[in-house]
């Protein structure tokens, strides 16, 4: 551009043109940047589409099944495991539909037996297992993380705070496979010695390990929402003669409840989707009971353990994708609630009172 300015007398004219050209580049840059930014929306939609697309055959197969082989389905439904083991030879020759046997009608059964002769894809034990682990993890993670956040935000001296916060956030940098390994090799043994239960890997061990993964999330977000409370609230409370403890628990904490709730929700999302820890520390047995010291199999661990071995496009494959879709919907929903509803609550609260 500079050289063109030096050349000849009609440089103003030239300059104008070059400036226009630059406006084009400006225009182009803006469009380009905008379209790249749009891609992140596209990615979310793509994830939606492709995870659902692979899960969809579950329902289509079911329709086919009910039309073509309904009596057979009912017949097989009645038999228990012993006679089912004797039967497969017969059913193999009679029906080519054997491989596509009743996926979605068994989805609500109590058995997760995807690779037996008579495969059943009951999601109940998986849901129950995930639920159990989530509750246990939350019971550990939420109080510890929230109390620690209260200390850092309210009681700690600024200098101490500068140290504590990054140290606790280091926990977020621990890869989940490391936490899983720690739970598998160390925690499982120690906890079994203390509590003396039968199965070494169970929902209790898994839950505590997942709490380690959820603590930094809950801690950071809670701390953020506590420090976001206007200083005037704290000063007013202290000015009225309340102690710091009273201020923290009766003024700041109630005001920050929506934010803390959002923090816990996102913690739940993390626990719900945590795969490696679940794979390594929960024992991976799809049982239906509520004993916290029994092995469980969570939804995400099921995907992680079985996806590598399924046949592309098989019913089992589709069911695993269905589980994935459910996980996706659930975390999407959690995030949406945390993001839109709760944030609006916080904003409204402080704007109306200011």
């Amino acid at each position: 551009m500079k050289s063109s300015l030096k050349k000849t007398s009609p440089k103003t004219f030239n300059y104008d043109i070059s400036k226009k050209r630059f406006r084009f580049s400006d225009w182009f840059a803006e469009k380009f940047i905008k379209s790249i930014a749009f891609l992140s929306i596209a990615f979310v939609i793509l994830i939606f589409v492709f995870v659902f697309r692979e899960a969809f055959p579950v329902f289509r197969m079911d329709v086919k099944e009910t039309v073509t082989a309904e009596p057979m389905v009912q017949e097989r439904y009645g038999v228990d495991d012993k006679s089912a083991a004797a039967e497969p030879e017969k059913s193999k020759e009679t029906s080519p539909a054997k491989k596509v046997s009743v996926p979605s009608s068994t989805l609500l059964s109590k058995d997760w037996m995807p690779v037996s002769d008579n495969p059943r894809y009951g999601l109940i034990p998986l849901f129950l297992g995930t639920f159990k682990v989530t509750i246990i993890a939350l019971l550990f993670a939420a109080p510890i993380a929230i109390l620690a956040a209260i200390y850092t935000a309210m009681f700690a001296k600024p200098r101490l705070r500068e140290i504590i916060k990054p140290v606790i956030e280091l926990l977020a940098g621990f890869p989940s496979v490391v936490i899983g390994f720690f739970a598998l090799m160390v925690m499982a043994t120690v906890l079994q010695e203390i509590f003396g239960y039968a199965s070494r890997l169970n929902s209790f061990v898994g839950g505590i390990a997942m709490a380690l993964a959820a603590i930094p999330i809950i801690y950071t977000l809670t701390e953020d929402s506590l420090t976001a409370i206007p200083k005037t609230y704290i000063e007013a409370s202290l000015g009225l003669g309340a102690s710091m403890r009273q201020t923290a628990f009766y003024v700041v904490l109630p005001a920050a409840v929506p934010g803390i709730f959002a923090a816990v929700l996102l913690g739940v999302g993390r626990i719900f989707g945590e795969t490696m820890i679940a794979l390594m520390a929960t024992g991976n047995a799809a049982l239906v009971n509520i004993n916290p010291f029994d092995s469980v199999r969570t939804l995400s661990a099921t995907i992680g353990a079985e996806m590598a071995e399924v046949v592309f496009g098989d019913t089992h494959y589709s069911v695993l994708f269905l589980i994935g879709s459910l996980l996706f919907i659930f975390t999407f929903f959690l995030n949406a609630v945390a993001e839109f509803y709760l944030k609006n609550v916080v904003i409204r609260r402080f704007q109306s009172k200011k």
Partner: protein
Amino acid sequence: MLKTSNIFQLQGRKGILNRSTIDILVEGLTILAVVVIIFIIVSILGIMISGGWSRLSLKFLSEYPKDGMTKGGIFPAIIGTALMTIIMAFAAVPFGVITAIYLAEYASERSIIAKTIRFAVKTLAVVPSIIFGLFGLGFFIGFVGKNMDVILNGGELKWGQPSLIWASLTMALLTLPVVIVSVEEAIRTIPRDMREASLALGATKWQTIRKVVLPGSVSGILTGTILAVSRGAGEVAPILFTGAVYFMSDLPHALNDQFMSLGYHIYIMSTQSANVDETLPIQFATTLVLLLLTFSLNAIAVVIRYRIRKRAN
């Protein structure tokens, strides 16, 4: 902090004395929570170091596994992780930086588009990592790869299978929010005056971004990249079925080769190894390597970020 409780104690009223004991108890409880968390962090680190330090050596880092994983080192796993994160960074960083520029420089805070993009980025950040694995399998391998095979190779299987490139791209998607958040934070710390000065000198908006905003946010881009690499090196779930394998006798040579990864190595060794006792030191040492890697990366990022924040104030 204000020392209100001390003021109350000076007044010496009975009820208030009671109150301050509760205060101390409650504060003690919160301190206990902090101590518990720090104890956990220290004990994980300590146990990994005590279990794996003796096995850790230059030889361990530079040798192939031998004798059914009971001897030798983790060289291919380190190289595999490095290659995967490098490709991942090449994909995620440009995307992340551009998106961050859009969010910080072009989009107005209240526009629906910007809000939607923000929500999409947050969604990418909270979606479980296993879902990314499913997506990689369904989209990259099952859709993109298969169609590439049909178009480029006439149906011969080359791209439509788990491989380094698909695992890296899957991981790039997972780490995209990390990059975006750090870069945007850094861009926002650049003083408004600098932009205005640039515009007043006749620079266009794009020139301002290119010559003022981008150079000013280099440290933010660096932090984002480091954090993304650290995250990508540690995640295992997305690569479970998009490219990682337990053992390879050779390093990956092409983008469509499979690869070994540190995290996957730990997972398989600790859960599916035939003789756990014999490989236990190797497992601890591998975990220690992964932990030290992510830890040091995170520490560097924290330091850079701290500097950026200092500039902002």
